């Protein structure tokens, strides 16, 4: 196990209320696995990703444990974190246009993690950056290395971010929506890159709502809803037969499955009344759902947060 997240809470106090972006997440991430975290906008998946990097904004409160090789990342000092962030655990942000510094060449930005963590010699850094550009198919690298971000297309910027993410040889790469808004050719290129990285043994955490994208190469799928993980399954099992009603809804809303949207709840569904949070949108909701179900484990390692799968009930 490379990362072990236990009872992670990330709350944002906003005027009179508290936004519970991540609200009690438990998950183990194995060495060299590819984990896809899926869920709708606002489900807390990006905040979970940022928490793994120790990049949360200052105005939030964080509780819980994120163990990386035994060390709790949440209790490390900023200096200790610096040794891990970008070097051991790296981040590929979403929105490539906004993530790049417009006044710095792409080559210098890709080389930054190298110069911070590995190598100070400028010639050697440049050589390494050229290799990285070649790897992410920004060619010819010699002509591109000194370009500024504005002259790159969206897909090229996205690939540059992947290059930046892997430039410090991380063990874990967290990619936030790596396929959002890019066309099929670029998507193919990104998928190809991530596959190569996976084969090299990098642990990949892919945050996305692009289900077809993860369908063919994630090992496990974690579904987030309203700050919680509601289902963890092997990829094949998940796409063959999702368990949680929300997961079923997600798959049914894909174009190839008939574009059936998940019914929207009312405004008060956002409130945390202690019951299952999906209840108001759920077609299977029963009286018991007023009490929130725990993450119910299955023998094969899957888990689902739904009373429909509570076997103790059947025994009793």
């Amino acid at each position: 196990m490379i990362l072990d997240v236990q009872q992670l809470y990330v709350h944002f106090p906003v005027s009179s209320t508290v936004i519970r972006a991540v609200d009690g997440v438990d998950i183990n991430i194995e060495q060299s696995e590819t984990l896809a975290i899926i869920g709708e906008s606002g489900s807390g998946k990006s905040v979970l990703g940022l928490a793994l990097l120790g990049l949360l904004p200052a105005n939030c409160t964080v509780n819980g444990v994120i163990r990386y090789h035994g060390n709790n990342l949440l209790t490390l000092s900023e200096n200790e974190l610096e040794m891990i962030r970008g070097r051991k655990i790296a981040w590929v942000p979403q929105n490539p246009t906004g993530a790049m510094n417009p006044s710095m060449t792409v080559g210098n930005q890709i080389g930054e993690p190298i110069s911070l963590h590995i190598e100070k010699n400028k010639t050697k850094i440049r050589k390494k950056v050229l290799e990285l550009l070649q790897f992410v198919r920004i060619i010819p690298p010699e002509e591109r290395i000194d370009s500024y971000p504005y002259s790159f297309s969206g897909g090229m910027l996205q690939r540059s971010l992947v290059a930046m993410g892997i430039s410090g040889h991380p063990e874990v790469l967290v990619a936030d929506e790596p396929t959002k808004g890019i066309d099929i050719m670029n998507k193919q290129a990104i998928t190809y890159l991530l596959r190569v990285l996976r084969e090299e043994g990098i642990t990949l955490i892919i945050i996305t709502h692009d289900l077809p994208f993860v369908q063919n190469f994630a090992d496990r799928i974690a579904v987030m809803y309203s700050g919680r993980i509601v289902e963890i399954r092997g990829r094949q099992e998940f796409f063959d037969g999702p368990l949680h009603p929300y997961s079923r809804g997600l798959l049914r809303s894909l174009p190839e499955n008939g574009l059936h949207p998940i019914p929207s709840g009312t405004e008060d569904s956002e409130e945390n009344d202690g019951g299952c949070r999906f209840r108001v949108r759920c077609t299977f909701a029963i009286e018991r759902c007023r009490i929130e179900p725990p993450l119910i484990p299955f023998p094969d390692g899957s888990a689902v947060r739904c009373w429909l799968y509570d076997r103790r009930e059947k025994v009793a």
Partner: protein
Amino acid sequence: MIEGRDLTKIFSPDSTGKNRIIAVDNVNIRIEAGETLTLVGESGCGKSTLSRLLLLLIPPTRGEIFFEGQALKGLKGKELHSIRKKIQIEPQQPESSLNPRWKIAYSICEPFRIHPDLLRGRQIEEELKRLIGLVGLEPEQAARYPHQLSGGELQRAVIARAIALEPAFLICDEPTSMLDVSTQASIIHLLKTLQKDLRCALLFITHDQGLAHAIGDRTAVMFAGQIVEEGRGVLDRPYHPFTRRITSISDSGSLQPSEPQGKKIPGSCVYYQFCPKKTEKCLHSPEMMEYEDRRVRCHNFSSA
């Protein structure tokens, strides 16, 4: 309904005529009332320029646009003003197409301010209520500012504005590429319902072949400014090498990305550098050929 004939748009960034970009290259396109044409293609292939030509936002370098049988060339001022209200767009990023300082309701009513002869005072307020209900927003949400709504809600607001004048032709430029799958499904349902009610022609631009499949009557595939293939079931039975290529990718990423081979040869087929099946004939750009229900721009294809 709406038709573009031999549309070409050339951008010349400098006056010398060097670095010319042929964004749209001899495109023929026709969409009937009530019909949906999906347009697929890579970033930068000219999809958005084509939609801007059809929206009459930029003039074509060559070619003509016909709307409801009327040639639009040479139309000025008032006549064009009255045609414009029948042509609307649903953009990819609703947040950047709404004024951040205006409340949602004020944005939705903007078309009535641009065309003041249609509705007045009370009528506008009633129409606003109707539109908000139609797209599934709460009146309370219409009283907010754009930053207070989610992406899906903003997209609904922009749809309300786009249909306010009951357009005859609506262009949707990747309206759901930034949304999650469930929100995407509900937005697509909304668009299809509205299209049925308004009997409008729809040009749906997308990267998502699954989506193109699910909603389009016909599909047009664009590459380097040209429509290379068009017809029914294009993505199921692709004929053109480029369409074959994009339909065989299927998100698996198992294929290595293709790279152009050799230099671009002037006058050759636009797909020449990438095509695995190119022959000598392909050094001359092929014409669009018609085969029953399909149009294909390739020398090496025959319907047999």
